[in-house]
């Protein structure tokens, strides 16, 4: 084993992880090569210095601060209304795209029945008879009730429902 190879294995030799045959070869070389032995000693000294470096201790205030932060994590999530959620989400980077789309989707879903011919759109449709009128009003009331109910649902569920909904019919269901 030559000097270059020994220098490349000194790190692992000092850690004692070399295969026995390689370790014996390194030891044989070190016994006959003063410069490599000196290098090995230098690395051993450095290893000792590193392991003897003073260690720091955290003070009791660390535990108190950590406990306070963990308690905050455990606090129940605040219930946020759908309107507030949409308002807050408008500050997010993606919201300029998604929030208006969601609102536009709801608006279209609400208005489409009134604009479409009664024969094409089964429900909800513009009332064409007393019976249809009653059905239409019932659906609109149900839609508003659903929207009211969503305000009491935890924010993530409410927004998910609203974003999933493609029509008022979806919200009612």
């Amino acid at each position, binding site marked *: 084993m030559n000097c270059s190879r020994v220098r*490349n294995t000194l*790190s*692992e030799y000092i*850690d004692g*992880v070399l295969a026995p045959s390689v370790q014996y070869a390194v030891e044989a070389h070190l016994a006959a090569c003063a410069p490599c032995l*000196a290098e090995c*000693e*230098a*690395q051993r*000294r*450095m*290893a000792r*210095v*590193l*392991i003897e*470096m*003073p*260690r*720091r*201790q*955290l003070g009791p205030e*660390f*535990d108190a*601060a*950590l406990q306070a*932060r*963990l308690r905050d*994590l*455990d606090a129940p999530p605040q219930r946020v209304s759908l309107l507030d959620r949409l308002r807050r989400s408008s500050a997010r980077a993606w919201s300029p795209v998604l929030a208006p789309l969601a609102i536009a989707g709801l608006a279209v879903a609400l208005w489409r029945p009134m604009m479409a011919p009664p024969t094409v759109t089964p429900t909800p449709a513009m009332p064409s008879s007393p019976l249809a009128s009653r059905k239409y009003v019932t659906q609109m009331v149900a839609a508003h009730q659903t929207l009211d109910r969503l305000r009491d649902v935890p924010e993530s569920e409410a927004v998910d429902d609203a974003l999933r909904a493609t029509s008022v019919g979806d919200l009612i269901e």
Partner: protein
Amino acid sequence: MSATNVLFADRCHREEARVFDEIVQQHKNRIYNYVCRMTHDSPEAEDITQEVFIKAYMSLGSFRHDAAVDTWLYRIATNLVIDRFRRRKRAVQSWVPLDEESDPLADLPATDRGSNPAAAAELTELQSQVQRAIATLPAKLRSAVVLHDMEGLSYEEVAEAVGCPVGTVKSRLFNGRNLLRRKLARYVEPGL
């Protein structure tokens, strides 16, 4: 939820909190020391250590039970520290590189160090130089040297903690030690 379920959930939660508190008490100083070494005793070290345990608490459910808790925590710490380096780059830039002119022991005869009455002060200074030399290492080499040579982790544990193969750990250790060895030559060479 029935009253029994509420009580059971509450008990589980309290038990989880107790176990987690034990983890904190067992490992907080080791993690803190690691973060200190990695950030050159940055004032942020304590804050980063807190972050480590917050993240650990939040991801308790995803903890692989075949992994050791300490390597898991070291891994979280490593990711947090490197993330801070990337975001700010302030820590690395503020670290003063070790150079000949800044060495306070440069004028002291090397042979006098062992018997000098001020040996304790010199040792403190040497340790300061070592810490500064460590701070100049690239982050990946530094984490390998600190975890293995200062925290006492095995190659395999370091590999788990930094998320790389054992062979890479060996290579990083080799390069990191050689860099340190050159920076600290005057303190570690035989006959000094």
